């Protein structure tokens, strides 16, 4: 019997791999949802980029759904994403909070001045410590947070018109439906 153990182990392994093939035909293996999805967003309080004396916190944003877009002036892909945000941000119907990630304030301001500012407010996280609570892998990333402060959707990588149409807009529409 004990000599059959390697065989049995392999059968289990093969079953798992077979499952993997079946699963991947229906799922995109590249979407890695954050473990924080459907969990409350971490408590945060960060200074505004333009006026560090003012802070924006989770509490101050409660009551309405909003988007958080993680960006940085040093981030090349953010530059590609930026024109999409410029054209689509005000069509989405929710405020877009800019989350300036590990950036020098001067660079960030100059970057927004050059490329335009699609954000309703920009908060700055120079140390990246709060971003760790959010589970930020790197810029750009986008979070959809509902009126109760719960993360409902996350995109790792740039928002493209297709992603907005196929994923983000349905997610926002679903939130609107829930709201009284």
């Amino acid at each position, binding site marked *: 019997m004990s*000599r*059959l153990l*390697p*065989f049995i182990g*392999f*059968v289990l*392994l*093969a079953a*798992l*791999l*077979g*499952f*993997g*093939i079946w*699963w*991947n*035909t229906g*799922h995109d*293996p*590249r979407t*890695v*949802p954050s*473990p924080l999805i459907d969990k409350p967003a971490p408590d945060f309080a960060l200074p505004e980029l333009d006026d560090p004396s003012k802070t924006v916190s989770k509490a101050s944003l409660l009551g309405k759904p909003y988007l958080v877009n993680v960006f940085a*002036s*040093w*981030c*090349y892909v953010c*530059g590609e994403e930026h024109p999409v945000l410029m054209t689509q941000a005000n069509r989405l119907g929710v405020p877009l909070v800019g989350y300036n990630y590990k950036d*020098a304030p001067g*660079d960030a301001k*100059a*970057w927004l001045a*050059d490329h335009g500012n699609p954000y309703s407010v920009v908060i700055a996280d120079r140390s990246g410590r709060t971003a760790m609570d959010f589970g930020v892998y790197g810029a750009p990333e986008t979070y959809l947070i509902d009126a109760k402060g719960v993360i409902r959707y996350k995109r790792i990588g740039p928002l493209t018109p297709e992603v907005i149409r196929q994923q983000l807009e349905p997610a926002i529409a679903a939130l609107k439906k829930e709201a009284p």
Partner: protein
Amino acid sequence: MTPELGQLALILALLLALAQSVLPLLGAWRGNRALMAVARPAAAGQAVFVALAFAILAWSFLHFDFSVRYVADNSNLELPWYYRIAAVWGAHEGSLLLWILILNVWTVALAIFGRNLPEAFAARVLAVLGLVSVGFLSFTIFTSDPFARLLPMPMNGADLNPVLQDPGMTFHPPMLYMGYVGFSVAFAFSIAALLGGSMEQAWVRQARPWTNAAWGFLTCGIVAGSWWAYAELGWGGWWFWDPVENASFMPWLVGAALIHAQAITEKRGSLRAWTILLSIFAFSLSLLGTFLVRSGVLTSVHAFASDPRRGLYILCFLAVVVGGSLLLYALRAPKVVGGKPFAVVSRETALLVGNLMLAVAAAMVLLGTLFPLLGDALHLGKVSVGPPYFGLLFPLLMTPVVLLLPLGPWLRWGKGDGGLLKGVLARCAVAALACAVVAAFFVHGEPKAILGVAAAVWVGAGVLLYVIKRWREMPRGRRYPAEMAGMLLAHLGVAVFLVGVLLSESLSVTRDVRMAPGDTQTIAGYRFRFDGIKQTVGPNWHAEQATVTVSRDGRPYGTMHPQKRTYPHDRVQTESAVDAGLTRDLYVALGEPMDAGNLQGAWALRLYYKPFVRWIWGGGLFMMLGGFVCACDRRFRGKRVAAAEGTDEAVPLPREARA
């Protein structure tokens, strides 16, 4: 027309592979010598046709035949000729062809060198290799035809993945495949032994050099891959526990265990079943590695083209090969067991503990690699265990191996000499402690670095003491037979590797900085000045190249030129600048411009100071060399079949030792 010839050659090779696998098996079963004799010529013929197919694909690349889809997808008119050759194995179809070619090279080599094996056994071994070849050839012909045409023919091709346009990366896949495929020899020996129902120690002796050489190649491939990741990815890391890396690391671990298990079985006849099981595992994990890389079941930083249909085929193949051999093992293993008993303190025990640790480590890596899949299957959500899991468990499992490593050669087969052992233990421990205390001053009390020095000295001292002992006690010419020299080299490699890993991990300095022209940064006494960007061009790329001037104590030290290359189709690849040194590397990677419109302005740069990082690959090279040297031992050539059952060449008798 020529590509169709290639296709034809592959089909003929498949037919010959079928002949090579089916007829000799029948012959060995029925005792028909004519059928058994088919194996050798069929293997040779198959190799000729596979080589022809490979040459035709290379020819298509050299002549820019973009009517072949694979050529059009992986090369273009600007690609230099040497990378067009490398492009033959640059993607899925061609790398399979390379796999098959290497399998054929190993098979032919075995057919030549294995002449003194018993007829039926040799026929079975070649037949098993033929079966493996049937699987891969039909996979290639039916799902991944490298000669498929593309109509209409494009004027120019796409490009070879720029990631692969690097000398290190060019040799990485062939070396890796030499290793993967090389384990097929030990595998075929084991299956043949199970089929025949007996396992002679002499056969194991003949299998050993193949395993050692295969393991040496695999080591070389992994070192090349690790070096490439370090130099090219721009993160300064050398190992990422990425699924694709793990896929090559698991067979390496099991292969290391197999080398030692084969030594026990050959010398003492014990642990036959374990040796058979390990050789099945080593080859199965090589196949699994191919599956993981090619099926797209797991995501990885190595974004290869993947296709579920291919995955399904490889899974079926895997099920037949691995499932079949493990079933065979379950049914037949009781027939081949045997060997001598051994005491608790003996070389067998030490090797067995090391073996188990290596096997468990391989299982641990397998579990970690497949964990995301398990998460999907059990509805735990998307989970992946990253470096923290491996970083905790792997060193834990390897600690006993490192502790036992220097003692192995001092222990005797069957029973140990406790007195001698205590002396060695004490000397190694004293040396390790003394060096650790001295090192503590130089590494600012960093515990991991101190541990690294101690562990390396522990292993190194054991090896060196043994070298000295042999020098003193053995007559000239018999001091270091190749088998032992190889073992000592490989073990020394472990010591070198330990220095590299633990010191570079604990003492590295990394800095992500924004630098405008003229800005300076100082790390670890080296002053880096950013002197701006200029444009350069290569054969098929253009690049922004930074000039970074390094000085130390006010004296100029050198200039470094990290690049950001743009290949056709806007594929961007960083090219880090590395100033390599025996005791430290300086490493500069160019990030992004702070302002995309102004390339002459400030840039993001990553600066690294990495002490002893080179020792990591140095250790790997020692291990590789050990594998190769060991494989050259004359004892394995099979001429002296009557050798050494029960005698012990590795350790002199205690009477001599005390004399």
